[in-house]
């Protein structure tokens, strides 16, 4: 039995080795350790090899001790161990193609896929037949926006979205503009919410789709989805929402909220990366022109073999999230308030971007006036954070979301996004708050703008020279 175990580890390490990055010394170490262990186990099965195994784990390693704290839950989330347990068998032994109709490998994979479909449907109150698996929320958004627009192109030529949507929605709209569609990009108010009257006024007789995200990934604002859905249903316009940051975190029901299309992402809800889903309503039927042609899998809307391990992972992630939603939400509210209160108590001139009343607590975007965002991120090097501005992206322009809520340029450059998740502890939050306060104070000491403020000069009255 141990011999078989050893052979299995040997097989795993060989494939691990093939897929490992050459530069990653941590993984190389781990792999060599597992390999020596595997060869020892397969040649001489003996319990003394437990020492070798233990050395390969975290306790024995010195350079693994200091990894930064992870506070960037909007970028991605770690895989929940229960999800890993659910999907491992489908990576190792249950490897059939779910579309193989003729043998047990296919049947068991198909059964797993259908179970996962039901789990995803349950968390949003949909029917399993209305779920289409895709490679992620980006692909789901593309299918929803481009697919619906192109299908109904003969009679309808107008789409409505907001200025704070995710890049994939905005880019799809831009591509449609090239094809001759009209797009209205709704502005948002200072609070981050859209004005419902603006939306009603923007809907034309030839509007086919309204696309508004449920929870914004940069400032965490929750849009009034039920009201938007009601308006769209009354005007007979399809309503699509990018719920990548919202599924499994806030309660959603596609029937109560009159949602016709919804994009779901796996790796934002403690599931695997590379998988997502698209909810497409069947009553009344929403039709899309498929982007990916092929054998007609997934109701003809997304051809291609459905990746069973990833899909099972997504289903398990949704199942776990469904059970733990209220607990997680309460806990996140507590630690989110803890961080904000701590920072606001110690530091003046800290602005929260987005109305806290209508925000998801797991995403807090703070602007620290008179401090440069990049320098603060560099200073907080043992906390993994993200900047709200696009300094971290290629252009030097600040984030379009912050510009849309009316943040001044200087504030947009000084914003930091704190993302809390299921595994964020109170100690991590306390540590982050302390370090943040300490470094902001330090950076403000060095800041000439801060000096001027202390002396009472009004910064806005200064004429900076153009260069």
């Amino acid at each position, binding site marked *: 039995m141990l011999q078989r175990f050893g052979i299995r580890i040997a097989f795993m390490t060989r494939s691990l080795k093939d897929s490992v990055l050459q530069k990653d010394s941590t993984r190389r170490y781990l792999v060599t350790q597992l390999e020596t262990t595997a060869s020892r186990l397969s040649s001489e099965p003996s319990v003394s090899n437990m020492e070798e195994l233990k050395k390969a784990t975290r306790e024995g390693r010195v350079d693994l001790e200091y990894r930064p704290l992870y506070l960037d839950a909007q970028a991605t989330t770690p895989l929940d161990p229960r999800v890993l347990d659910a999907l491992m068998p489908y990576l190792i032994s249950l490897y059939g193609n779910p579309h193989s109709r003729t043998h047990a490998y296919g049947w068991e994979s198909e059964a797993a896929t259908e179970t996962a479909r039901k789990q995803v449907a349950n968390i949003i109150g949909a029917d399993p037949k209305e779920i289409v698996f895709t490679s992620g929320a980006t692909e789901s958004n593309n299918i929803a926006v481009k697919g619906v627009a192109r299908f109904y192109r003969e009679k309808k030529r107008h789409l409505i979205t907001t200025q704070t949507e995710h890049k994939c929605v905005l880019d799809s709209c831009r591509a449609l503009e090239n094809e001759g569609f009209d797009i209205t990009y709704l502005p948002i108010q200072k609070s981050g919410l859209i004005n419902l009257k603006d939306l009603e006024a923007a809907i034309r007789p030839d509007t086919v789709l309204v696309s508004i995200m449920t929870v914004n990934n940069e400032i965490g604002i929750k849009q009034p989805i039920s009201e938007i859905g009601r308006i769209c249903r009354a005007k007979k316009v399809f309503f699509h929402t990018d719920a990548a940051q919202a599924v499994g975190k806030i309660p959603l029901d596609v029937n109560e909220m009159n949602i016709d299309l919804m994009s779901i992402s796996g790796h934002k809800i403690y599931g695997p990366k590379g998988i997502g889903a698209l909810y497409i309503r069947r009553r009344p039927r929403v039709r899309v022109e498929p982007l990916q042609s092929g054998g007609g899998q997934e109701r*003809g809307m997304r051809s291609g073999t459905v990746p069973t391990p990833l899909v099972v992972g997504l289903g398990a992630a949704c199942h776990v999230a469904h059970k733990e939603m209220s607990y997680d939400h309460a806990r996140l509210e507590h630690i989110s308030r803890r961080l904000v209160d701590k920072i606001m108590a110690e530091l003046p001139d800290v602005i929260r971007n987005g109305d806290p009343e209508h925000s998801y607590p797991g995403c807090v975007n703070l602007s620290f006036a008179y401090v440069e965002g990049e320098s603060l991120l560099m200073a907080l090097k043992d906390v993994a954070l993200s900047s709200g501005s696009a300094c971290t992206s290629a252009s030097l322009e600040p984030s379009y979301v912050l510009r849309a809520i009316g943040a001044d340029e200087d504030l947009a450059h000084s914003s930091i996004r704190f993302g809390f998740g299921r595994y964020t502890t109170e100690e991590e939050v306390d540590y982050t708050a302390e370090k943040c306060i300490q470094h902001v104070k330090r950076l403000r000491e060095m800041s000439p703008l801060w000096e001027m403020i202390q002396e009472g000069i009004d910064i806005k009255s200064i004429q900076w020279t153009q260069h």
Partner: protein
Amino acid sequence: MNFISHLQKRNIVASNLNGPLQHGEYEWQDPKSEEEVVNVVFVTKDGKRIPVRGKIGDNVLYLAHRYGIEMEGACEASLACTTCHVYVQNEYFDKLPAAEESEEDLLDMAPFLKENSRLGCQIILTKELDGIELRLPTATRNFYVDGHVPQPH
């Protein structure tokens, strides 16, 4: 009849079989009088217009088979394929009864779907549909890239 309707309720047998099981024999009979006649124009994928004299109660798929029109009908009108996919002229689209869910589900899988698409085997001719134009799509699910044309069976 009770047995068939029972099987229909359980979705084992197609719902359009509301009578003795037909395989196109009815469509081979000519219309008995002018009141029964329903004129249909089939437009093939090459654009050729073929006017056809059908009668009330004809199934469009079997009517097409009678007159040699290239509508495949692989599953013989049992709502299991999409090879009889046609585009219905817009003015007549609303005169057809609403599609059932199983037909809508199949239409989702049909290639080159448009807003006015229907399955030909679900269209039963009535006098209201006189003069209807049915256009065939450029290809069906069984797209024969080698030019093969399957014969009706």
